Protein backbone atom coordinates (compact mmCIF):
# COMPACT_ATOMS: atom_id res chain seq x y z
CA UNK A 1 0.00 0.00 0.00
CA UNK A 2 1.56 3.26 -0.98
CA UNK A 3 0.79 6.57 0.64
CA UNK A 4 -0.05 9.71 -1.30
CA UNK A 5 2.96 12.03 -1.51
CA UNK A 6 2.42 15.36 0.19
CA UNK A 7 1.44 17.86 -2.41
CA UNK A 8 -0.38 21.19 -2.57
CA UNK A 9 -3.79 20.59 -4.15
CA UNK A 10 -3.71 23.04 -7.09
CA UNK A 11 -0.13 24.30 -7.33
CA UNK A 12 2.52 23.40 -9.87
CA UNK A 13 2.98 19.65 -10.21
CA UNK A 14 -0.54 18.99 -8.99
CA UNK A 15 -2.37 16.05 -10.54
CA UNK A 16 -4.81 18.41 -12.32
CA UNK A 17 -2.02 20.42 -13.86
CA UNK A 18 -0.13 17.33 -14.94
CA UNK A 19 -3.25 16.00 -16.66
CA UNK A 20 -3.74 19.26 -18.51
CA UNK A 21 -0.10 19.23 -19.65
CA UNK A 22 -0.61 15.72 -20.85
CA UNK A 23 -3.69 16.67 -22.85
CA UNK A 24 -1.87 19.60 -24.44
CA UNK A 25 1.03 17.40 -25.35
CA UNK A 26 -1.22 14.79 -26.90
CA UNK A 27 -3.04 17.49 -28.89
CA UNK A 28 0.29 18.70 -30.25
CA UNK A 29 1.22 15.18 -31.22
CA UNK A 30 -2.04 14.71 -33.08
CA UNK A 31 -1.45 17.94 -34.96
CA UNK A 32 2.01 16.88 -35.96
CA UNK A 33 0.93 13.44 -37.13
CA UNK A 34 0.06 14.32 -40.74
CA UNK A 35 3.41 16.07 -41.14
CA UNK A 36 5.23 13.12 -39.66
CA UNK A 37 3.39 10.69 -41.89
CA UNK A 38 4.28 12.75 -44.95
CA UNK A 39 7.91 12.81 -43.95
CA UNK A 40 7.92 9.06 -43.49
CA UNK A 41 6.28 8.50 -46.88
CA UNK A 42 8.74 10.74 -48.66
CA UNK A 43 11.64 9.03 -46.95
CA UNK A 44 10.32 5.63 -47.95
CA UNK A 45 9.85 6.74 -51.53
CA UNK A 46 13.35 8.14 -51.63
CA UNK A 47 14.70 4.89 -50.28
CA UNK A 48 12.71 2.98 -52.88
CA UNK A 49 14.39 5.49 -55.17
CA UNK A 50 16.40 3.75 -57.82
CA UNK A 51 13.83 1.30 -59.12
CA UNK A 52 11.27 3.06 -61.24
CA UNK A 53 7.84 2.28 -59.86
CA UNK A 54 6.87 1.23 -63.37
CA UNK A 55 9.44 -1.60 -63.56
CA UNK A 56 7.62 -4.87 -63.15
CA UNK A 57 9.96 -7.81 -62.59
CA UNK A 58 7.30 -10.37 -63.43
CA UNK A 59 7.14 -9.08 -67.02
CA UNK A 60 10.72 -10.06 -67.76
CA UNK A 61 12.93 -13.11 -67.79
CA UNK A 62 16.44 -12.21 -68.82
CA UNK A 63 19.13 -14.09 -70.68
CA UNK A 64 22.09 -13.27 -72.87
CA UNK A 65 23.13 -14.42 -76.31
CA UNK A 66 26.74 -14.60 -77.44
CA UNK A 67 27.81 -15.01 -81.06
CA UNK A 68 31.26 -16.51 -80.92
CA UNK A 69 31.91 -15.68 -84.55
CA UNK A 70 31.59 -11.98 -83.84
CA UNK A 71 33.89 -11.76 -80.84
CA UNK A 72 37.19 -10.06 -81.70
CA UNK A 73 38.75 -10.50 -78.27
CA UNK A 74 39.22 -6.76 -77.70
CA UNK A 75 38.39 -7.14 -73.99
CA UNK A 76 36.28 -3.96 -73.82
CA UNK A 77 33.50 -5.94 -72.15
CA UNK A 78 35.68 -7.22 -69.31
CA UNK A 79 37.10 -3.74 -68.83
CA UNK A 80 33.71 -2.02 -68.82
CA UNK A 81 32.36 -4.56 -66.33
CA UNK A 82 35.10 -3.80 -63.83
CA UNK A 83 34.49 -0.08 -64.30
CA UNK A 84 30.73 -0.24 -63.97
CA UNK A 85 30.68 -2.58 -60.99
CA UNK A 86 33.77 -1.43 -59.15
CA UNK A 87 35.41 -4.85 -59.28
CA UNK A 88 39.01 -4.99 -57.97
CA UNK A 89 41.38 -4.48 -60.87
CA UNK A 90 43.79 -7.25 -59.84
CA UNK A 91 43.84 -10.18 -62.28
CA UNK A 92 42.20 -12.57 -59.82
CA UNK A 93 38.61 -11.32 -59.76
CA UNK A 94 36.36 -11.29 -62.80
CA UNK A 95 32.65 -11.03 -63.31
CA UNK A 96 33.21 -11.61 -67.01
CA UNK A 97 36.25 -12.50 -69.07
CA UNK A 98 37.28 -13.54 -72.59
CA UNK A 99 39.09 -16.78 -73.43
CA UNK A 100 41.10 -17.45 -76.53
CA UNK A 101 41.13 -20.96 -77.98
CA UNK A 102 43.82 -22.13 -80.38
CA UNK A 103 43.36 -25.59 -81.85
CA UNK A 104 46.43 -26.88 -83.62
CA UNK A 105 46.69 -29.30 -86.48
CA UNK A 106 48.49 -31.67 -84.09
CA UNK A 107 45.32 -32.01 -82.07
CA UNK A 108 46.33 -29.81 -79.17
CA UNK A 109 43.99 -27.17 -77.69
CA UNK A 110 45.56 -24.20 -75.96
CA UNK A 111 43.35 -21.85 -73.95
CA UNK A 112 44.50 -18.53 -72.52
CA UNK A 113 42.91 -15.57 -70.80
CA UNK A 114 45.62 -13.06 -69.76
CA UNK A 115 44.03 -10.72 -67.21
CA UNK A 116 40.65 -11.93 -68.47
CA UNK A 117 41.38 -10.38 -71.86
CA UNK A 118 41.15 -6.84 -70.51
CA UNK A 119 44.46 -5.79 -72.05
CA UNK A 120 43.79 -7.72 -75.22
CA UNK A 121 45.72 -10.81 -76.24
CA UNK A 122 49.34 -10.96 -77.33
CA UNK A 123 49.01 -11.71 -81.00
CA UNK A 124 52.29 -13.50 -81.26
CA UNK A 125 50.87 -16.89 -82.06
CA UNK A 126 52.25 -18.30 -85.26
CA UNK A 127 49.76 -18.99 -88.01
CA UNK A 128 51.36 -22.26 -88.96
CA UNK A 129 49.69 -25.26 -87.54
CA UNK A 130 46.49 -23.52 -86.51
CA UNK A 131 43.42 -25.53 -87.26
CA UNK A 132 40.84 -23.21 -85.69
CA UNK A 133 41.09 -20.28 -83.36
CA UNK A 134 38.50 -18.00 -81.80
CA UNK A 135 37.51 -16.02 -78.73
CA UNK A 136 34.82 -16.98 -76.24
CA UNK A 137 33.40 -14.50 -73.72
CA UNK A 138 32.38 -16.06 -70.42
CA UNK A 139 30.25 -14.84 -67.55
CA UNK A 140 27.74 -16.03 -65.01
CA UNK A 141 25.11 -18.00 -66.86
CA UNK A 142 22.24 -16.98 -64.56
CA UNK A 143 21.07 -20.56 -64.65
CA UNK A 144 17.39 -21.32 -64.33
CA UNK A 145 18.37 -24.27 -62.11
CA UNK A 146 21.31 -22.69 -60.30
CA UNK A 147 23.56 -25.00 -58.26
CA UNK A 148 24.93 -22.00 -56.39
CA UNK A 149 21.50 -21.05 -55.05
CA UNK A 150 20.90 -24.67 -54.11
CA UNK A 151 23.94 -24.88 -51.85
CA UNK A 152 23.88 -21.51 -50.10
CA UNK A 153 23.33 -22.45 -46.44
CA UNK A 154 21.64 -19.21 -45.40
CA UNK A 155 19.75 -17.98 -48.44
CA UNK A 156 22.16 -15.17 -49.35
CA UNK A 157 22.05 -15.88 -53.06
CA UNK A 158 18.86 -16.25 -55.02
CA UNK A 159 17.26 -15.95 -58.43
CA UNK A 160 14.86 -13.05 -58.89
CA UNK A 161 11.50 -13.28 -60.59
CA UNK A 162 13.08 -11.70 -63.65
CA UNK A 163 15.66 -14.46 -63.89
CA UNK A 164 18.76 -12.76 -62.51
CA UNK A 165 20.86 -14.57 -59.91
CA UNK A 166 21.95 -12.08 -57.26
CA UNK A 167 23.95 -12.09 -54.04
CA UNK A 168 22.78 -10.43 -50.83
CA UNK A 169 26.08 -9.11 -49.62
CA UNK A 170 24.66 -7.96 -46.31
CA UNK A 171 23.58 -11.52 -45.50
CA UNK A 172 26.34 -13.63 -47.04
CA UNK A 173 28.53 -15.32 -44.43
CA UNK A 174 31.40 -15.95 -46.81
CA UNK A 175 31.45 -19.75 -46.57
CA UNK A 176 32.40 -20.02 -50.27
CA UNK A 177 30.22 -23.02 -50.95
CA UNK A 178 28.51 -21.28 -53.89
CA UNK A 179 31.89 -20.59 -55.46
CA UNK A 180 32.70 -24.29 -55.25
CA UNK A 181 29.32 -25.26 -56.67
CA UNK A 182 29.49 -23.05 -59.77
CA UNK A 183 30.64 -25.22 -62.69
CA UNK A 184 31.61 -22.18 -64.76
CA UNK A 185 34.04 -20.44 -62.44
CA UNK A 186 31.83 -17.36 -62.49
CA UNK A 187 32.01 -16.53 -58.79
CA UNK A 188 34.72 -15.20 -56.53
CA UNK A 189 35.07 -13.90 -53.00
CA UNK A 190 35.41 -10.14 -52.91
CA UNK A 191 38.68 -9.37 -51.09
CA UNK A 192 37.25 -6.35 -49.29
CA UNK A 193 33.68 -7.25 -48.41
CA UNK A 194 34.54 -10.94 -47.85
CA UNK A 195 31.28 -11.94 -49.49
CA UNK A 196 30.62 -13.87 -52.68
CA UNK A 197 30.32 -11.81 -55.85
CA UNK A 198 29.60 -12.37 -59.51
CA UNK A 199 28.00 -10.93 -62.62
CA UNK A 200 24.59 -9.43 -61.87
CA UNK A 201 23.61 -8.72 -65.50
CA UNK A 202 24.17 -5.13 -64.25
CA UNK A 203 20.82 -5.42 -62.52
CA UNK A 204 20.99 -1.76 -61.50
CA UNK A 205 21.05 -0.85 -65.22
CA UNK A 206 18.52 -3.42 -66.32
CA UNK A 207 15.76 -2.20 -64.01
CA UNK A 208 16.15 1.20 -65.65
CA UNK A 209 15.71 -0.27 -69.11
CA UNK A 210 19.42 -0.14 -69.99
CA UNK A 211 21.63 -3.02 -71.05
CA UNK A 212 24.52 -4.46 -69.02
CA UNK A 213 27.81 -2.61 -69.41
CA UNK A 214 29.45 -5.47 -71.32
CA UNK A 215 26.65 -5.49 -73.89
CA UNK A 216 26.79 -1.70 -74.15
CA UNK A 217 30.45 -1.59 -75.09
CA UNK A 218 30.79 -4.67 -77.27
CA UNK A 219 31.90 -3.13 -80.59
CA UNK A 220 30.78 -5.99 -82.81
CA UNK A 221 27.47 -6.84 -81.19
CA UNK A 222 28.71 -10.24 -80.09
CA UNK A 223 26.70 -9.96 -76.86
CA UNK A 224 22.93 -9.66 -77.05
CA UNK A 225 20.78 -9.03 -74.00
CA UNK A 226 17.08 -9.43 -73.69
CA UNK A 227 14.02 -11.33 -72.59
CA UNK A 228 14.12 -15.06 -73.07
CA UNK A 229 10.42 -15.54 -73.28
CA UNK A 230 9.21 -12.54 -75.27
CA UNK A 231 8.61 -13.15 -78.95
CA UNK A 232 10.02 -9.83 -80.00
CA UNK A 233 13.28 -9.16 -78.28
CA UNK A 234 16.79 -9.15 -79.76
CA UNK A 235 17.50 -12.30 -77.80
CA UNK A 236 14.44 -14.07 -79.18
CA UNK A 237 15.58 -13.30 -82.72
CA UNK A 238 19.07 -14.50 -81.88
CA UNK A 239 17.81 -17.83 -80.57
CA UNK A 240 15.52 -18.24 -83.54
CA UNK A 241 18.16 -17.78 -86.21
CA UNK A 242 21.13 -19.51 -84.64
CA UNK A 243 21.89 -23.01 -83.50
CA UNK A 244 22.32 -22.56 -79.80
CA UNK A 245 24.62 -24.30 -77.37
CA UNK A 246 25.05 -23.79 -73.65
CA UNK A 247 28.05 -24.58 -71.50
CA UNK A 248 28.09 -27.93 -69.71
CA UNK A 249 24.53 -28.95 -70.57
CA UNK A 250 25.04 -32.37 -68.98
CA UNK A 251 25.03 -30.75 -65.53
CA UNK A 252 21.42 -29.64 -66.08
CA UNK A 253 21.95 -26.17 -64.66
CA UNK A 254 19.76 -24.72 -67.47
CA UNK A 255 22.06 -21.79 -68.26
CA UNK A 256 20.50 -18.68 -69.77
CA UNK A 257 23.58 -17.57 -71.67
CA UNK A 258 23.10 -18.93 -75.17
CA UNK A 259 26.11 -19.38 -77.43
CA UNK A 260 25.88 -19.41 -81.21
CA UNK A 261 28.69 -21.05 -83.16
CA UNK A 262 30.21 -22.52 -80.03
CA UNK A 263 33.04 -24.94 -80.77
CA UNK A 264 32.96 -28.38 -79.17
CA UNK A 265 36.33 -27.76 -77.52
CA UNK A 266 34.96 -25.05 -75.26
CA UNK A 267 34.52 -26.08 -71.61
Amino acid at each position, binding site marked *: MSTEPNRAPDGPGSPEEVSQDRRDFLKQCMAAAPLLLTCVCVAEAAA*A*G*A*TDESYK*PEEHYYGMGIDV*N*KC*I*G*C*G*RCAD*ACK*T*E*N*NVPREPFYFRTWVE*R*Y*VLTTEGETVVTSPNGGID*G*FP*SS*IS*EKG*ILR*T*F*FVPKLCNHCANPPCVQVCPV*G*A*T*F*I*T*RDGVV*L*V*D*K*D*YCIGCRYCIQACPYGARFLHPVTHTAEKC*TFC*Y*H*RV*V*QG*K*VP*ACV*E*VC*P*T*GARIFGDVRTRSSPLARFTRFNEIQVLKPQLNTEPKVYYANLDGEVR
Partner: protein
Amino acid sequence: MPQQLNRLAIVFVILIGSLIGARHYLVPKTFGALGHYRAAAIEANAAKPLVYAGHEACEMCHSDVVKTHDNAHHKSVACEVCHGAQAAHVESPTDHKPPAPRQRAFCPLCHAYDASRPTGFPQIDPVSHNPGRPCISCHNPHAPVPPHTPQECSACHGEIARTKALSQHAGLPCTTCHKVEEKHKISPPLSTPSKPQNREFCGQCHGKEAKAAAEIARVDMSTHGERYVCWQCHYAHSPEAK
Protein backbone atom coordinates in the same frame (compact mmCIF):
# COMPACT_ATOMS: atom_id res chain seq x y z
CA MET B 1 8.63 -39.25 -14.26
CA PRO B 2 12.14 -40.02 -13.04
CA GLN B 3 13.95 -37.12 -11.48
CA GLN B 4 16.59 -37.10 -14.22
CA LEU B 5 14.09 -36.52 -16.97
CA ASN B 6 12.51 -33.76 -14.94
CA ARG B 7 15.74 -31.83 -14.67
CA LEU B 8 16.66 -32.43 -18.28
CA ALA B 9 13.25 -31.29 -19.45
CA ILE B 10 13.72 -27.98 -17.62
CA VAL B 11 17.12 -27.43 -19.23
CA PHE B 12 15.88 -28.24 -22.73
CA VAL B 13 12.77 -26.15 -22.46
CA ILE B 14 14.86 -23.13 -21.44
CA LEU B 15 17.35 -23.70 -24.27
CA ILE B 16 14.85 -24.27 -27.03
CA GLY B 17 12.58 -21.52 -25.76
CA SER B 18 15.35 -18.96 -25.89
CA LEU B 19 16.34 -20.10 -29.39
CA ILE B 20 12.81 -19.68 -30.67
CA GLY B 21 12.56 -16.31 -28.97
CA ALA B 22 15.84 -15.14 -30.42
CA ARG B 23 14.71 -16.24 -33.85
CA HIS B 24 11.73 -13.95 -33.71
CA TYR B 25 13.94 -10.92 -33.21
CA LEU B 26 16.87 -11.86 -35.37
CA VAL B 27 15.38 -13.03 -38.67
CA PRO B 28 15.38 -10.02 -41.05
CA LYS B 29 11.95 -8.57 -41.72
CA THR B 30 11.81 -9.07 -45.48
CA PHE B 31 13.15 -12.61 -45.41
CA GLY B 32 10.90 -15.14 -47.11
CA ALA B 33 8.59 -12.60 -48.76
CA LEU B 34 9.54 -13.63 -52.29
CA GLY B 35 11.56 -16.78 -51.69
CA HIS B 36 14.24 -18.04 -49.33
CA TYR B 37 16.11 -14.74 -49.28
CA ARG B 38 15.89 -11.20 -48.00
CA ALA B 39 13.58 -9.39 -50.41
CA ALA B 40 15.33 -6.13 -49.50
CA ALA B 41 18.45 -7.46 -51.22
CA ILE B 42 16.81 -6.96 -54.62
CA GLU B 43 16.56 -3.26 -53.92
CA ALA B 44 20.12 -3.19 -52.61
CA ASN B 45 21.36 -4.62 -55.90
CA ALA B 46 19.13 -2.36 -58.00
CA ALA B 47 20.12 0.81 -56.20
CA LYS B 48 23.74 0.90 -57.33
CA PRO B 49 24.87 4.02 -59.21
CA LEU B 50 25.37 4.01 -62.97
CA VAL B 51 28.89 4.50 -64.26
CA TYR B 52 28.20 4.03 -67.98
CA ALA B 53 25.42 6.24 -69.28
CA GLY B 54 24.45 4.19 -72.33
CA HIS B 55 24.67 5.50 -75.88
CA GLU B 56 21.04 6.73 -75.89
CA ALA B 57 22.08 9.44 -73.47
CA CYS B 58 24.56 11.01 -75.89
CA GLU B 59 22.02 11.76 -78.58
CA MET B 60 20.28 14.43 -76.50
CA CYS B 61 23.19 16.86 -76.88
CA HIS B 62 25.42 15.38 -79.56
CA SER B 63 22.84 14.49 -82.20
CA ASP B 64 25.01 15.59 -85.14
CA VAL B 65 27.90 13.31 -84.20
CA VAL B 66 25.48 10.51 -83.43
CA LYS B 67 23.90 10.89 -86.89
CA THR B 68 27.26 10.63 -88.63
CA HIS B 69 28.35 7.79 -86.40
CA ASP B 70 25.17 5.77 -86.87
CA ASN B 71 25.58 5.75 -90.65
CA ALA B 72 29.18 4.67 -90.76
CA HIS B 73 31.28 1.59 -90.09
CA HIS B 74 31.47 2.19 -86.33
CA LYS B 75 27.70 2.24 -85.88
CA SER B 76 27.81 -0.79 -83.62
CA VAL B 77 30.57 0.77 -81.48
CA ALA B 78 28.99 2.58 -78.53
CA CYS B 79 30.24 6.08 -77.69
CA GLU B 80 31.56 5.04 -74.29
CA VAL B 81 33.82 2.35 -75.75
CA CYS B 82 36.21 5.10 -76.82
CA HIS B 83 35.12 7.96 -74.62
CA GLY B 84 34.98 6.02 -71.35
CA ALA B 85 32.13 5.63 -68.88
CA GLN B 86 30.29 8.95 -68.83
CA ALA B 87 27.30 8.78 -66.50
CA ALA B 88 29.05 11.52 -64.54
CA HIS B 89 29.26 13.64 -67.68
CA VAL B 90 25.54 13.21 -68.31
CA GLU B 91 24.86 14.28 -64.72
CA SER B 92 26.91 17.47 -64.95
CA PRO B 93 28.33 17.98 -68.43
CA THR B 94 30.65 20.85 -67.64
CA ASP B 95 32.22 19.27 -64.57
CA HIS B 96 33.25 16.03 -66.26
CA LYS B 97 34.71 16.14 -69.76
CA PRO B 98 34.95 12.81 -71.57
CA PRO B 99 38.44 11.94 -72.77
CA ALA B 100 39.00 11.13 -76.45
CA PRO B 101 41.72 8.59 -77.19
CA ARG B 102 44.08 10.14 -79.70
CA GLN B 103 47.11 7.94 -79.27
CA ARG B 104 48.06 5.18 -81.70
CA ALA B 105 47.98 2.50 -79.03
CA PHE B 106 44.20 2.63 -78.68
CA CYS B 107 42.74 1.59 -82.02
CA PRO B 108 44.85 -1.59 -82.33
CA LEU B 109 42.99 -2.97 -79.28
CA CYS B 110 40.36 -3.94 -81.84
CA HIS B 111 42.12 -3.51 -85.16
CA ALA B 112 45.54 -5.08 -84.69
CA TYR B 113 45.87 -8.25 -86.67
CA ASP B 114 45.12 -11.35 -84.60
CA ALA B 115 44.72 -14.79 -86.10
CA SER B 116 41.84 -15.50 -83.73
CA ARG B 117 39.79 -12.60 -85.04
CA PRO B 118 37.14 -13.45 -87.61
CA THR B 119 38.20 -13.31 -91.25
CA GLY B 120 37.19 -10.13 -92.94
CA PHE B 121 37.22 -8.04 -89.79
CA PRO B 122 39.29 -4.97 -90.69
CA GLN B 123 42.76 -5.56 -89.23
CA ILE B 124 46.13 -3.96 -89.77
CA ASP B 125 49.66 -4.61 -88.59
CA PRO B 126 50.23 -1.67 -86.20
CA VAL B 127 53.99 -1.84 -86.74
CA SER B 128 53.98 -1.45 -90.50
CA HIS B 129 50.72 0.44 -91.10
CA ASN B 130 51.70 4.12 -91.35
CA PRO B 131 54.11 3.96 -88.41
CA GLY B 132 54.26 6.92 -86.09
CA ARG B 133 51.12 8.63 -87.36
CA PRO B 134 48.06 8.82 -85.12
CA CYS B 135 45.18 6.76 -86.52
CA ILE B 136 42.83 9.74 -86.45
CA SER B 137 45.01 11.67 -88.90
CA CYS B 138 43.59 9.51 -91.70
CA HIS B 139 40.46 7.96 -90.14
CA ASN B 140 37.63 9.99 -88.64
CA PRO B 141 36.69 7.82 -85.64
CA HIS B 142 32.99 8.65 -86.08
CA ALA B 143 33.09 7.66 -89.77
CA PRO B 144 36.27 5.61 -90.10
CA VAL B 145 36.31 5.09 -93.84
CA PRO B 146 39.86 4.34 -94.98
CA PRO B 147 41.29 7.39 -96.86
CA HIS B 148 41.92 5.21 -99.92
CA THR B 149 39.88 2.23 -100.93
CA PRO B 150 42.16 -0.79 -100.48
CA GLN B 151 43.05 -2.21 -103.89
CA GLU B 152 44.84 -5.34 -102.80
CA CYS B 153 42.77 -8.17 -101.38
CA SER B 154 45.56 -8.72 -98.84
CA ALA B 155 44.62 -5.47 -97.08
CA CYS B 156 41.68 -7.27 -95.41
CA HIS B 157 42.42 -10.92 -96.18
CA GLY B 158 46.00 -10.94 -94.91
CA GLU B 159 46.10 -14.45 -93.59
CA ILE B 160 44.79 -15.92 -96.83
CA ALA B 161 47.26 -13.83 -98.81
CA ARG B 162 50.16 -14.94 -96.65
CA THR B 163 49.17 -18.59 -96.93
CA LYS B 164 48.76 -18.35 -100.71
CA ALA B 165 52.08 -16.58 -101.10
CA LEU B 166 53.90 -19.69 -99.85
CA SER B 167 52.01 -22.10 -102.07
CA GLN B 168 51.99 -23.30 -105.68
CA HIS B 169 49.23 -20.78 -106.36
CA ALA B 170 51.46 -17.87 -105.30
CA GLY B 171 51.66 -16.44 -108.76
CA LEU B 172 47.91 -16.37 -109.29
CA PRO B 173 46.04 -13.15 -108.51
CA CYS B 174 42.95 -13.69 -106.33
CA THR B 175 40.74 -12.63 -109.24
CA THR B 176 41.80 -15.76 -111.13
CA CYS B 177 39.23 -17.70 -109.15
CA HIS B 178 37.13 -14.99 -107.46
CA LYS B 179 35.09 -12.40 -109.35
CA VAL B 180 35.07 -9.23 -107.22
CA GLU B 181 32.84 -6.21 -107.71
CA GLU B 182 34.36 -2.80 -106.96
CA LYS B 183 31.74 -2.13 -104.30
CA HIS B 184 33.06 -5.07 -102.26
CA LYS B 185 36.22 -3.06 -101.67
CA ILE B 186 34.24 -0.08 -100.42
CA SER B 187 31.69 -1.91 -98.31
CA PRO B 188 32.37 -5.63 -98.10
CA PRO B 189 28.95 -6.82 -96.90
CA LEU B 190 27.32 -5.24 -99.97
CA SER B 191 28.77 -7.68 -102.46
CA THR B 192 30.30 -11.10 -101.87
CA PRO B 193 33.01 -12.23 -104.33
CA SER B 194 32.17 -15.36 -106.30
CA LYS B 195 33.76 -18.77 -105.82
CA PRO B 196 34.28 -21.57 -108.38
CA GLN B 197 31.26 -23.87 -108.51
CA ASN B 198 32.42 -27.07 -110.20
CA ARG B 199 35.32 -29.42 -110.98
CA GLU B 200 35.59 -28.13 -114.54
CA PHE B 201 36.79 -24.79 -113.24
CA CYS B 202 39.93 -26.31 -111.80
CA GLY B 203 40.06 -28.54 -114.85
CA GLN B 204 40.68 -25.45 -116.95
CA CYS B 205 44.31 -25.60 -115.76
CA HIS B 206 44.65 -29.03 -114.24
CA GLY B 207 42.83 -31.24 -116.73
CA LYS B 208 44.89 -33.53 -119.04
CA GLU B 209 43.68 -31.68 -122.17
CA ALA B 210 43.83 -28.17 -120.59
CA LYS B 211 45.46 -25.38 -122.50
CA ALA B 212 47.69 -24.15 -119.71
CA ALA B 213 51.34 -23.87 -118.76
CA ALA B 214 53.36 -27.08 -118.96
CA GLU B 215 54.54 -27.05 -115.34
CA ILE B 216 51.02 -27.19 -113.92
CA ALA B 217 50.19 -30.57 -112.38
CA ARG B 218 47.68 -32.52 -114.50
CA VAL B 219 45.09 -35.12 -113.50
CA ASP B 220 42.59 -37.15 -115.42
CA MET B 221 39.42 -35.25 -114.55
CA SER B 222 37.18 -38.20 -115.36
CA THR B 223 38.72 -40.49 -112.74
CA HIS B 224 40.56 -38.33 -110.19
CA GLY B 225 38.47 -37.84 -107.05
CA GLU B 226 35.45 -38.70 -109.16
CA ARG B 227 32.50 -37.68 -107.02
CA TYR B 228 34.01 -34.75 -105.13
CA VAL B 229 34.60 -31.14 -105.95
CA CYS B 230 38.28 -30.34 -105.91
CA TRP B 231 38.34 -28.16 -102.80
CA GLN B 232 36.85 -30.88 -100.64
CA CYS B 233 40.37 -32.34 -100.52
CA HIS B 234 42.65 -29.57 -101.77
CA TYR B 235 42.70 -26.28 -99.88
CA ALA B 236 42.81 -23.88 -102.80
CA HIS B 237 44.99 -21.27 -101.04
CA SER B 238 47.63 -23.92 -100.30
CA PRO B 239 46.74 -26.89 -102.48
CA GLU B 240 49.81 -28.99 -101.71
CA ALA B 241 49.45 -28.73 -97.92
CA LYS B 242 48.94 -32.01 -96.18
